[in-house]
């Protein structure tokens, strides 16, 4: 009984952590699933999102004339909300540039896309270092979602629950977009049959441009959400790529539901080993992957993908 009482907080914490992992993997999954590009720049763009948000929140009086001054006068929550919208859009534009560079690799060995995005990851990381310095930065969160509360005799972080809730909302919205709108239908069609999409008269290269930008914007969104937890430094993205990779393979490439479930599963595994055998907490996610892939070739919910060849 004591054990159960001890365990419960860790289960709750693990699920919250898992939702954050799912958010980190979301944009990566979309790009892999639809475009069959393994975007190794996901991490750098994740970091860039955090930096852009920090800039947007930290605008100082006199930077942009009267409009800027009006903006500076807004409450912290409003500026934070602005950052949550504008940050991903700005990163999405950067993503569009990257997509233009990627065009030559379509239809070739997926390794080329991977190599190009690996190069892009270095470039973006170094540009962050040039622009903001290599030091630790800080992303201010509004008071309403900062601080802590006590539940069951333990202190919990308000921000962490906000972040988990935000992840749920983002995941549902993306899901609705893909499943319930005509755009989503086109994207999914593009994923499975690009010739069909072309036959329908849809401009495939434009579709890819927007999908890539959208996926990258989701990476930035995750970066903004994670910055107050992980901190913000030029190479913070490295910490995001590996879990993202792991989660989409665990869930099965191309499966939205799979990625979400895998994210939560990884969160629970890391959270519980963190409490009872913390020295193995990082290792646990790799062992989980090895066990699952050994028994289920395409992860939990994977379908056949070009990336298998």
């Amino acid at each position: 009984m004591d054990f159960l009482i001890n365990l419960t907080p860790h289960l709750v914490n693990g699920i919250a952590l898992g939702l954050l992992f799912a958010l980190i993997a979301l944009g990566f999954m979309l790009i892999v699933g639809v475009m069959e590009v393994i975007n190794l720049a996901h991490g750098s763009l994740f970091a860039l999102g955090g930096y852009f948000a920090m800039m947007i929140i930290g605008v100082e009086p006199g930077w942009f004339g009267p409009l800027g001054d009006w903006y500076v006068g807004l409450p912290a929550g409003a500026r934070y909300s602005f950052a949550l919208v504008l940050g991903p859009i700005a990163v999405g534009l950067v993503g569009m540039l990257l997509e233009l560079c990627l065009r030559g690799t379509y239809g070739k060995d997926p390794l080329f896309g991977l190599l190009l995005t690996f190069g892009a990851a270095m470039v973006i990381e170094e540009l962050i270092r040039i622009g903001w310095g290599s030091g630790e930065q800080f992303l201010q969160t509004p008071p309403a979602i900062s601080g802590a509360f006590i539940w069951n005799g333990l202190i919990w972080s308000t921000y962490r629950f906000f972040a988990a809730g935000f992840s749920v909302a983002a995941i549902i919205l993306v899901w609705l977009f893909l499943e319930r709108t005509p755009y989503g239908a086109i994207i999914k069609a593009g994923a499975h049959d690009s010739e069909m999409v072309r036959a329908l008269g849809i401009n495939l290269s434009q579709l890819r441009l927007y999908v890539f930008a959208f996926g990258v914007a989701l990476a930035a969104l995750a970066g903004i959400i994670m910055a107050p937890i992980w901190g913000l430094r030029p190479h913070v993205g490295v910490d995001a790529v590996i879990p993202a990779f792991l989660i989409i393979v665990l869930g099965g490439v191309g499966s939205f539901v799979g990625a979400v479930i895998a994210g939560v599963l990884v969160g629970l595994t890391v959270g519980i080993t963190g409490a009872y055998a913390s020295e193995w907490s990082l290792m646990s996610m790799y062992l989980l992957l090895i066990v699952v892939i050994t028994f289920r070739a395409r992860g939990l919910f994977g379908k056949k993908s070009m990336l298998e060849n």
Partner: protein
Amino acid sequence: MSIQQAGLSKKTGPMHRAIIGIAAAMLGAYVAQVSVAAAGTGPIVIGITSDASGQYANSGASDRRGMKMAIAEFNAKGGVLGRKIEFIHIDTETTPATGSRVAERLISRDKVSFMIGAVSSGVANAISQVAQKNGVIYLNTNSSSPTESGKNCHRVKFVWDGNGANFAQAAVSNAIDSYGTKWQLVTNDYVWGHNTASATKALVEKAGGKIIGEILVPQGTRDFSSILLKIQQDKPQVVAAAVGGDDQKALRQQVAQLGMGQNPAWINNQQDWPDVYGLPTDNLFGVFGTTWYYKLDLPGVIDFVARYQNMYPDTKMKVPGNVFYNGYMATHSLLSAIEAAGTTNNHAVIKQLEQLKVSAADRMQHHDAFMNPKTHQMQQTVYLATANVGSSDKDDMFKIVSNSAPMKVADAKAEATCNLESFADTPVYEP
């Protein structure tokens, strides 16, 4: 080493001897080449081996600024022994294997006279091994691993930062008196973490405290939520954290979010200034160690800060911190030692450095400092600090709570584990 081996093989046949002859000739040519370069009276070239990318890029940059300021000040006085001082920097990338290659390059291609700079102990080890092989004096400015002046000490290497054991000495007995005897350790699961934790553990037990548990944190941990919940469940009075690098940055941010920085009491080993500069003060939880602070009320400090600001007007870090200070002091002491020795001959300079004593006034610290000739670690004042909550000056982040004389915080284990190479085994190098 090679000369000895060649000399030893007298019993071998003509073929063998011929081969050794060739090898010796090659070696001779190599040595001759080196001494040609050495005889020069041109500039003294310092190879700066600090990180510009990877985990310690930011500290590396600060370290580098310290060295450059010391070099600039000596050059303004006309250099050392009438020779100008130049430097060349190559990024060591916070990666030991790169450190080896950079050291090989600096010595064999760029013919540097001395090498300075490290934040990570792995990189420092890699460089110092190459340095020792060639007899090049190397200053480890900022790596605080106890192994640097213990197991992995070298005749050519000098260590300028306080280490984990020093900081633990300064913190533990105070903390038992003020906060309680029930301690929990949170330890990064790698060599530095374990060394620091075991020093803390021994001190806690000696002072009558009790360790109720140790949570091992793997390197690369970014989420401490489950560990922070576990700490709450275990209810220690004091948590001693030996968590470093980026892991520490994530930890303190998450502790700040929970407002757990005061209860339980936290003992953090060391907080490097470049890691904390510009962050809100609640990120600086608990008590932590440092070797210097820019608001120490001592003569010379204000002038030192002014010189920094004058030389680096555009740097984001408006005031110097401990990493800059160590880089500056190490370089300054080296150049002074060369001057005192009257030569750049490595053996002579090493001997000067081994008997180095710097007065409290010159160090801008509370106590005189001296080099321990047996471990090559600078024995210096160790300060404990906490967050300066409610400060109106956003640069003034630390509140210094105590200072300890070097002897009181000496790393007792170092002398037993450090075994310096003899001078005979250290090649002569005279740049």
